């Protein structure tokens, strides 16, 4: 067994792990009952899975310029995934897709009520 073969085995393991996490994200997005749970499935395992895929690709290609490019991709993904998830959650809260009875803690509603008086909660229909 040469070094190349071992590195290919490592790369294959990373690729399969990443694809498995992507698959888990797909299962979660179909299976979970409401928007916030689906968003959780769509961001966390998905980003980790893509990170694994890109690490596997970098190990397979074994070149520093490619590794730099893939680092850039990971950086962009880690910067943009929270922004997108935050925007989706905010829009969901404001259009009444988040139901108060599903939440353990609802600090956003508490804070808005403390600030504005009885304010429109997550179930109300404020745009």
């Amino acid at each position, binding site marked *: 067994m040469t070094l190349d073969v071992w590195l290919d085995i490592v790369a294959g393991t990373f690729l399969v792990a990443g694809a498995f996490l992507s698959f888990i994200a797909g299962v979660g997005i179909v299976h979970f009952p409401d928007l916030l749970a689906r968003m959780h499935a*769509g961001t966390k395992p998905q980003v980790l899975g893509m990170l694994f895929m890109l690490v596997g690709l970098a190990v397979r290609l074994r070149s520093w310029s490619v590794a730099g490019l893939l680092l850039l991709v990971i950086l*962009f*993904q880690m910067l943009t995934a929270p922004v997108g998830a935050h925007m*989706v959650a905010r829009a969901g809260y404001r*259009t009444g897709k988040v139901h108060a009875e599903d939440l353990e803690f609802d600090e956003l509603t508490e804070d808005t009520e403390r600030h504005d008086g009885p304010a429109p909660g997550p179930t109300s229909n404020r745009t």
Partner: protein
Amino acid sequence: MIYAVIVAAALLAGAAILALIRAEKGPSMLDRTVAFDVFTTTLVAAVALEAAWSRRTDTLVLLVVLSLVGFVGSVTISRFAAIEPEDAARVRTREEVEAERLAERAAEEAAVEAEQARREALRAEAARAAEEAAQASDSSEEERP
């Protein structure tokens, strides 16, 4: 390596199909947005897998572009998300779309006909007024001498 690639490709295909299922079912636009986010990331993973299989580096630019652009869609949709009517929760069938199109066309035709009727009424009114004016001028000319 070939087995790893086959297994990973099958898992990615499953993830993409599940994301599409959610995009079809998703009760709100935001669920569909999340589903398409997952689909885009699965696409990135698939391109990475293909690059790992054939050891090519020219498709890596696609990864950068997709990871940058993929989130613009979800942010835009979320920014302009509004309260949706209840019947927007599911994709309409072909027959429903056809029925709606026919209803729209019927409404347009009715509007065009109403407009034509209104114009003809106006024209008849104008003709009658002109005739009366001509009669009046005739009678006044008869009276003048």
